[in-house]
């Protein structure tokens, strides 16, 4: 019981943080989802993603100074790719928020936030490596885990492994 109370208080704080962002950006972001584990919202107007990111980092009552994670996601049913970013505010506030940003599966791209949080640099490269999400404005967008000449994006749902890599058979 005690724990449930703590979580809901966290969600309340996150909701308060959300309303500050919502006040500024209005319909550019979606409604607040009071998910007990990780409350989140989605960026609807993706062309304002960097702007929202800077606002979240610098606003005196938000201070999301810590990007805990940035993960790529594939949504084949919607024909989209996306990222989920987890933010916290170290030493300032207890609120936590996750932000989802999506782009088209073919030929879509997202704004990079690598210069807002340096953590995003490698994480965006990983999302590019695994899902093929392009990040505009990223200082060095190239593969980070797979070899540079790897074909395809391994974590996409429809990924098929290549037959040969440098003359070595890949499938079992």
């Amino acid at each position, binding site marked *: 019981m005690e724990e449930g109370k703590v979580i809901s208080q966290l969600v309340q704080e996150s909701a308060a943080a959300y309303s500050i962002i919502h006040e500024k950006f209005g319909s550019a972001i979606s409604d607040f989802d009071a998910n007990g584990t990780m409350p989140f919202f989605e960026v609807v107007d993706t062309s304002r993603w960097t702007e929202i990111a800077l606002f979240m980092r610098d606003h005196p009552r938000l201070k999301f100074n810590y990007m805990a994670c940035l993960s790529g996601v594939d949504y084949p049913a919607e024909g989209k790719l996306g990222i989920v970013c987890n933010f916290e505010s170290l030493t300032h506030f207890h609120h936590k928020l996750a932000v989802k940003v999506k782009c088209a599966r073919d030929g879509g791209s997202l704004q990079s936030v690598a210069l807002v949080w340096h953590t995003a640099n490698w994480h965006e490269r990983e999302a590019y490596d695994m899902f093929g999400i392009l990040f505009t404005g990223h200082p060095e967008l190239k593969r980070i885990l797979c070899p540079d000449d790897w074909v395809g994006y391994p974590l996409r749902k429809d990924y098929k492994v290549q037959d040969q890599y440098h003359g*070595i058979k*890949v*499938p079992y």
Partner: protein
Amino acid sequence: MGLLDAGITKHNMLITSVDNVLNWARLSSLWPMGFGLACCAIEMMATNASNYDLERFGIFPRSSPRQSDLMIVAGTVTMKMAERVIRLYEQMPEPRYVLSMGSCSNCGGPYWEHGYHVLKGVDRIIPVDVYVPGCPPRPESLIGGLMKIQELIRMEQIGISRADALKKLSEKSVDPQFIIERERKAVGA
């Protein structure tokens, strides 16, 4: 039988074949290359350390392929690593031996189906002499594998090929099930 067990008398003179001396020298100082690729390497390090003490067999890891005659492929060989493994293998002087340790390097292990980045068996790129199964193999199994390499060296002769030596070795193979049953009976299990 070891050479020294023969008992040396007559002014330390001893008559044996050149093959015997060479093989004895080589199998008593097998130097593996000191490199590990994944979790299996932890077990290999444990085997090298004091509890299992590989040095009692004269097995001591070297830090250069140029000084090694045995490659223990301990762990997951990724596609990225595969080409490096080939290069390291080619840098080793002959005669050289390869021991594939663990399911990953035997056949891809847990990554056999969905591991797009894993080489499904190091024998796709370099010739393997002995496979040690397990995920990871216990140090005892690794020692067992190393002793198989020693046996293989014992089978070698000047003028016969590695393939012939391996054939001679496989002719001497025993059925492990039989030994397990026998040991079980002996302890009354």
